């Protein structure tokens, strides 16, 4: 399936990893896929998402505000624990990213996809097939997010009152052009 991804779609998948790492998440969720799509500013799907008010930095801020991270630095501060200080010490001993590396000594740089995020990628394939597209573009991933319909990415959309059928139409139009 991955070989059918366009370079933008691949970049979104790789970028989701980066987004998850930046937010100190143990899993790549739908919200990280959304952020990765938004990070590709020149792309047609990012432009379509931006028309609905979805831009990278503000969405990242919203997601941080949900406080769903397993490791919430702000919450730990209420107990007098400075997560950054803990991270610095752990990394000094065990190397960069050690605290986010749940899988001990296994592949250091790999954050696994959540089942829901995996589902989104599967659905992006189906969206591509439904549109009779030979390749899976980043726009299909965006459509996959909408099709999946749950997860934090959708919570962002709902909380902002975004008209998802309209967004779907916009993304589809962008893909066809």
């Amino acid at each position: 399936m991955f070989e059918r991804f366009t370079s933008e779609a691949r970049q979104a998948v790789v970028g989701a990893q980066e987004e998850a790492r930046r937010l100190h998440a143990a899993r790549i969720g739908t919200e990280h896929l959304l952020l990765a799509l938004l990070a590709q500013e020149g792309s047609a799907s990012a432009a379509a998402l931006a028309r609905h008010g979805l831009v990278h930095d503000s969405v990242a801020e919203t997601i941080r505000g949900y406080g769903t991270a397993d490791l919430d630095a702000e919450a730990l501060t209420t107990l007098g624990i400075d997560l950054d200080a803990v991270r610095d010490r752990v990394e000094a001993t065990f190397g960069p990213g050690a605290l986010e590396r749940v899988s001990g000594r296994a592949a250091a740089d790999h954050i696994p996809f959540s089942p829901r995020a995996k589902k989104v990628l599967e659905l992006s394939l189906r969206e591509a097939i439904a549109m009779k597209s030979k390749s899976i573009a980043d726009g299909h991933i965006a459509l996959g997010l909408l099709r999946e319909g749950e997860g934090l990415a959708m919570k962002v959309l709902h909380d902002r009152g975004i008209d998802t059928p309209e967004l779907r139409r916009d993304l589809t139009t962008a893909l066809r052009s």
Partner: protein
Amino acid sequence: MADTGQVASAASSKDPTVGLRAVRSLRTLVERLEALQVGNARDQGWTWEQIAQQLGVTRQAVHKKYASGRGPLRRRD
């Protein structure tokens, strides 16, 4: 980072959201530190018995958690 005033009020508030989130984060932190330390001990040749003793749990408990076939810290050999 939140400003200190906000943090101080959060700490003194009785809002369960804040307290529970802190507990969850603390639990996650403990789990991750434990995995790192157990992995390090195994790398240095410690037995499950020795690790369990330091953690204050049974050998079976630590073995079950970290030595299973699909576990993160299984031996490569």
